[in-house]
């Protein structure tokens, strides 16, 4: 799709390969003939699997690729009429700004206003004008009152807005962003997407956003570009691109939940469903439900179904002794912050718990009590009846595995194999037992081919898998996962969750810390919501989605399909639907009361 105005960005037949990661290896080909034209003021999302070349494309816009990365570069990238290969990165900074995933590594100053002034200073902008630019850029990102603050003490979302403002202060006409929301909570993500849409609309800044946030892309973005196999495989409006949900799923990218629902309903009925947004889906499906309910309609026997009775007491009422128990636990950090207040909770073996809450609500503090990384200030935490205050972390680690948000915090070994064997060696297992478990883990996570590579050189998705494999190989009884799916594409996420499900089905307890409510709906059997260091809700996810006040308090939103089914319930749709598959099955039953549902 070529814009009518002269393009701000023009990419012609771009081929790019990174230098070989290991001496004597082959270059890693990423882009294989990309052609793209983007007009001034467009807001474009670049989608693709982890490792598809999204970051590379962003970095090609300000010349980091190939000037800083080296490698083999063919074709041409022109930004505002300047060929990026012919200009130095610093010289391109006025044309194209680039914002990275981790705000920590792009903020260089101790004060917000100095951060914003840094770029213009480097460009030799006179001091009076820098003042104007700083004021303008802070205003543009909605941080006017933050001039004097230290970036160290801002939230993740605020830091990312400062990073965007720091780019805007150099007055670029093009802004590329490489997964800027991957590490943010829902409030932070929403703030960034709102800001980007506004910058494109009101200030005519061309935005190129590499992301995995499909739901938000559907809501905010004008144009979607899909990178697959090194080329632009799809390029159109979100509605048209996401209408190809089956293809996107096949490519491992996935689609927003309502687009997936539309494709599922189309597949199993003789009608065509095409919707992407809540309003469209509601309008189309409500109309059909009404016609079904009319006398002579094909579902006139149906009355609105009652809301299923839901236990509000969670699933911890097992008679057996709990595997993990919090008994009136309070925890204060050394600076006096009360992170947990009088928390009592019992977890039976084999439960799948989603631990939810806004940032700073105490989730991670709670989880770190499970393997003794933190010990309660008051009260007692028991793991298999053992008081964690009396046990060493190393001892508790055998019972409770912990997969951290960032795999790079644990990866250190020279090969993937050694990385996985590390925890097993600490347990003092025999060579034969170790070899057997390492092979199992390599196979389970499709890492066999990479077994002798340095894990630090693998891509992000694979590093995540190595970290996970290393923990699961130790065969813990319970597993804590802290935001395991951030920045992962649909296929990597499904693979990871499949491994977690297998672990759970074989009797392992899972505690999943996440902001992704779709995972909660589809996988968890119990949702524990924290706010202000306390447990404010503890029951099945289905019950949570009925409690608006809890969702609002914890800054959570039910998945799109859940909200849609809630809105359609008064018209006869079954209540308590959690996933696309459940929705499609309920719809099928309405349409063909006697028919069965084929596998979904």
């Amino acid at each position: 799709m070529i814009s009518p105005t002269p393009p701000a960005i023009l990419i012609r037949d771009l081929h790019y390969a990174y230098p070989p990661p290991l001496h004597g290896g082959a270059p890693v080909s990423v882009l294989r003939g990309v052609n793209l034209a983007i007009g001034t003021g467009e807001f474009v999302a670049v989608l693709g699997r982890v490792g598809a070349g999204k970051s590379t494309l962003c970095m090609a816009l300000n010349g980091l690729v190939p000037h800083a990365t080296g490698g083999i570069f063919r074709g041409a990238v022109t930004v505002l009429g300047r060929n990026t290969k012919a200009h130095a990165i610093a010289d391109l900074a006025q044309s194209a700004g680039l914002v990275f995933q981790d705000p920590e590594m792009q903020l260089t100053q101790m004060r917000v206003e100095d951060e914003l002034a840094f770029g213009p200073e480097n460009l030799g902008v006179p001091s009076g004008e820098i003042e104007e630019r700083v004021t303008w850029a802070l205003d543009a990102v909605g941080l006017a009152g933050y001039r004097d603050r230290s970036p160290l003490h801002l939230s993740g979302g605020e830091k990312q807005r400062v990073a965007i403002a720091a780019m805007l202060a150099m007055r670029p006409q093009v802004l590329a962003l490489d997964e800027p929301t991957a590490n943010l909570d829902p409030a932070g993500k929403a703030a960034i997407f709102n800001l980007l849409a506004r910058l494109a609309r009101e200030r005519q800044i061309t935005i190129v956003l590499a992301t995995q946030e499909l739901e938000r892309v559907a809501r905010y973005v004008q144009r979607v570009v899909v990178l697959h196999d090194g080329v632009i495989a799809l390029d159109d409006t979100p509605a048209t691109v996401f209408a190809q949900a089956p293809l996107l799923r096949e490519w491992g990218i996935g689609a927003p939940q309502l687009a997936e629902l539309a494709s599922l309903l189309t597949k199993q009925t003789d009608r065509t469903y095409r919707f992407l947004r809540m309003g469209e889906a509601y309008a189309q499906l409500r109309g059909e439900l009404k016609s079904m309910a009319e006398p002579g309609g094909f579902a006139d026997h149906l009355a609105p179904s009652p809301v299923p009775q839901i236990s509000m007491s969670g699933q911890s009422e097992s008679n057996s002794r709990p595997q993990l128990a919090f008994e009136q636990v309070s925890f204060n950090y050394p600076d006096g912050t009360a992170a947990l207040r009088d928390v009592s909770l019992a977890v039976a073996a084999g439960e799948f718990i989603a631990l939810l809450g806004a940032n700073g609500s105490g989730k991670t503090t709670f989880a770190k009590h499970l393997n003794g990384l933190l010990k309660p200030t008051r009260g007692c935490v028991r793991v298999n009846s053992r008081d964690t205050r009396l046990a060493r972390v190393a001892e508790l680690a055998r019972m409770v595995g912990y997969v951290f948000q960032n795999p790079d915090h644990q990866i250190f070994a020279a090969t993937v194999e050694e990385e996985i064997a590390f925890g097993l060696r600490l347990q003092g297992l025999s060579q034969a037992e170790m070899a057997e478990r390492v092979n199992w883990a390599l196979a389970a996570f499709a890492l066999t081919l990479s077994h002798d590579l340095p894990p630090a050189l693998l891509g992000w998705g694979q590093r995540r898998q190595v970290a996970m494999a290393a923990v699961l190989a130790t065969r813990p009884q319970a597993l804590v996962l802290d935001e395991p799916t951030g920045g992962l594409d649909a296929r990597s996420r499904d693979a990871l969750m499949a491994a977690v499900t297998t672990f759970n089905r074989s009797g392992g307890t899972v505690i999943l810390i996440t902001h992704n409510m779709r995972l909660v709906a589809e996988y968890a059997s119990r949702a524990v919501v924290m706010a202000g260091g306390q447990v404010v809700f503890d029951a099945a996810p289905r019950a949570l989605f009925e409690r608006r006040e809890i969702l609002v308090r914890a800054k959570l939103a039910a998945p799109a399909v859940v909200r849609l089914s809630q809105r359609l319930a008064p018209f006869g749709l079954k209540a308590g639907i959690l996933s696309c598959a459940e929705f499609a099955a309920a719809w099928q039953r309405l349409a063909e009361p006697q028919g069965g549902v084929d596998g979904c």
Partner: protein
Amino acid sequence: MGAEFDVYVRRNTWLYALDPRVKLALVAEAILFTFLWTSVWAALAVAAACLLLLWLAQVPAGRIAAFLRGIVPLLLMVLVLTALFAGGSGPVLVSIGPLRVTVDGVMQGLLLAARLLALGLAFFFWLSTTDQAAMVRGFVALRMPYTWGLTLALALRYLPILAGLFEQVREAQQARGLDLRQKRFFERLSAYRPVLIALLISALRNSERLGWALEARALGTHGIRRSVFRPLHLRRTDLWALAALGGLLVAGVALRVL
């Protein structure tokens, strides 16, 4: 986490507003006065003056107390070791085997400890009242190349982040069953190997990103003279402070020489 490395506290007092060069001159003069006299009292007087300045600058008492708590063990160690090993003449206070603690040795220990305290407080005053950007501007105004100043500033900026990273890496390795509570030094050192390697890999990865981020912010643009957002100008308060420092310097040197 790790924010304790961030010494600077923003306050709106005239001492904060002083030109960074003037504050640097103050630190230099404090160092000079500490060594001008070979006297515990002189060093203690400088330390007291620094404490007075910290109080006038309204640096929170908790911060000052935390700094003192941190430095006291070091001072005690200096005092004890010097007293034990400096030897020296004068009456023997205590004999422990071959070691003799003399009055001279103790006085020397006290002098070293007092000077260390004075120096520590002078630098603490400087770090608490001068933000990173002002520090760099100060150095650059004193003809230090900008990249040196920036490197120093980045080091200060990333110290807390590195400390936080170390903490996260340590927790991640402990969560895998790594026992870091070994009794013997070398065992503990080898136990920390996975932590240090993972930290190094992460730090290298981060430094590559940081390099990219700096380039993306037009650092090192060819043919352009870097401008300054808030150029330094000596104001009236700065001139008065400089005059006072100069007077004090002349008086001090005269007192010493005469």
